[in-house]
């Protein structure tokens, strides 16, 4: 089958000039995640911000760090009073039937990319700058529909948007003192049966 091997073999390997555009696209694409996920994060933050002024985040002594309750309508309410014990919160969600992976992050950090394979491009997607396109994508993606903030410390979870064996990945990040909101939440769905790697915090100014 040597004839096939030599077929069009004078086609040369690409030069750096041939590849400049593709390389630029890759480098731009490496930094898209923050821009994309800002949208769901901002939506969450906006909901939280509405009551931040009247409700301090950190609860007093004796208040549990978190609670998970199931409502009669089938939704689940996750109350987070303190960003402490992510494994415990994860276990509580598990008891409520939500397979979750929870990470708590210090200010100005985020989990390193590529922890999991998402069911949609809400995580690690291409950049979206047009508000209409973003709105349309938010409607199309399932990840943003799974969680909704209902108060400064309560997040409502809608299990109807989670398919069997998918993992709800929750990354809470504490914000700097004096920030408009106390913490932000990134919430995404990892594909059914795929692993979610532990969060490796890295610096993130955004």
């Amino acid at each position, binding site marked *: *089958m040597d*004839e*096939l*091997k030599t*077929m*069009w073999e*004078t*086609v*040369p*390997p*690409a*030069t750096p000039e*041939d*590849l400049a*555009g*593709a*390389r630029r*696209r*890759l*480098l731009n*694409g*490496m*930094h898209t995640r923050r821009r994309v996920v800002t949208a769901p994060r901002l939506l969450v933050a906006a909901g939280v911000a509405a009551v931040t002024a009247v409700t301090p985040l950190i609860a007093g002594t004796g208040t549990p760090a978190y609670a998970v309750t199931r409502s009669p309508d089938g939704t689940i309410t996750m109350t987070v009073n303190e960003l402490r014990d992510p494994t415990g919160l994860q276990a509580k969600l598990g008891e409520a039937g939500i397979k979750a992976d929870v990470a708590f992050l210090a200010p100005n950090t985020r989990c*390193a*990319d*590529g*922890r*999991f*394979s998402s069911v949609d491009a809400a995580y*690690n997607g*291409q950049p979206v700058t047009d508000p209409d396109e973003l709105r349309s994508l938010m409607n199309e993606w399932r990840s943003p529909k799974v969680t909704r903030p209902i108060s400064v410390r309560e997040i409502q979870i809608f299990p109807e948007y989670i398919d069997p064996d998918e993992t709800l990945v929750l990354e809470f990040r504490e914000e700097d003192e004096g920030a408009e909101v106390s913490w932000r939440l990134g919430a995404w769905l990892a594909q059914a049966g*795929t*692993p979610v*790697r532990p969060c*490796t915090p*890295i610096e993130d100014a955004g």
Partner: protein
Amino acid sequence: MTITREVVESDDATLIERSLNEPESFAVLFDRHAPLLHRYVTRRLGPGEAEDVVADTFLAAFQRRGDYDRGRPDARPWLYGIASNVIGKRRRTERSLYRAYIRSGVHPAEIPGSQVEDGVNTLAVNRPLARALLGLKRADRDVLLLVAWAELSYQEVADALAIPLGTVASRLNRARTQIRQALEQGE
């Protein structure tokens, strides 16, 4: 981030793992494999689509790098597997290239200048080959060209396309039979 000598000399698996915390390391993987991947795509689709396919391939790879099996130091099967999927979405372009070649005898990315006699002989072989490639099932063509043009081993093709080794062998056998018949029949 500064790309150090240590990063440049790492194997692909180490680079990919490193890129989880230092995304820029992934550019080293691009510089390492993109030139030949581009050539492979150009042979299959022509020069017009190659840059886009290479960019799409590496972007998809970057997004999935968390799932990379770090037990595989060479990322070529992984990258060519992703590229095969991207190429598969442009089947029409590939078929058009083969048809155009059958008509004109010119691949748009080949370096011209070989002697006329050689060119004629080459054409007498390549035209039936192009016709045979056009007639192959996509799955068979992927396997055949990953072996012939990307120079992957059978096991690497199996890894690239996530198919059993036996399937690689049977697809390759079927494709080679068709190619052989096409060459026997000639122009």
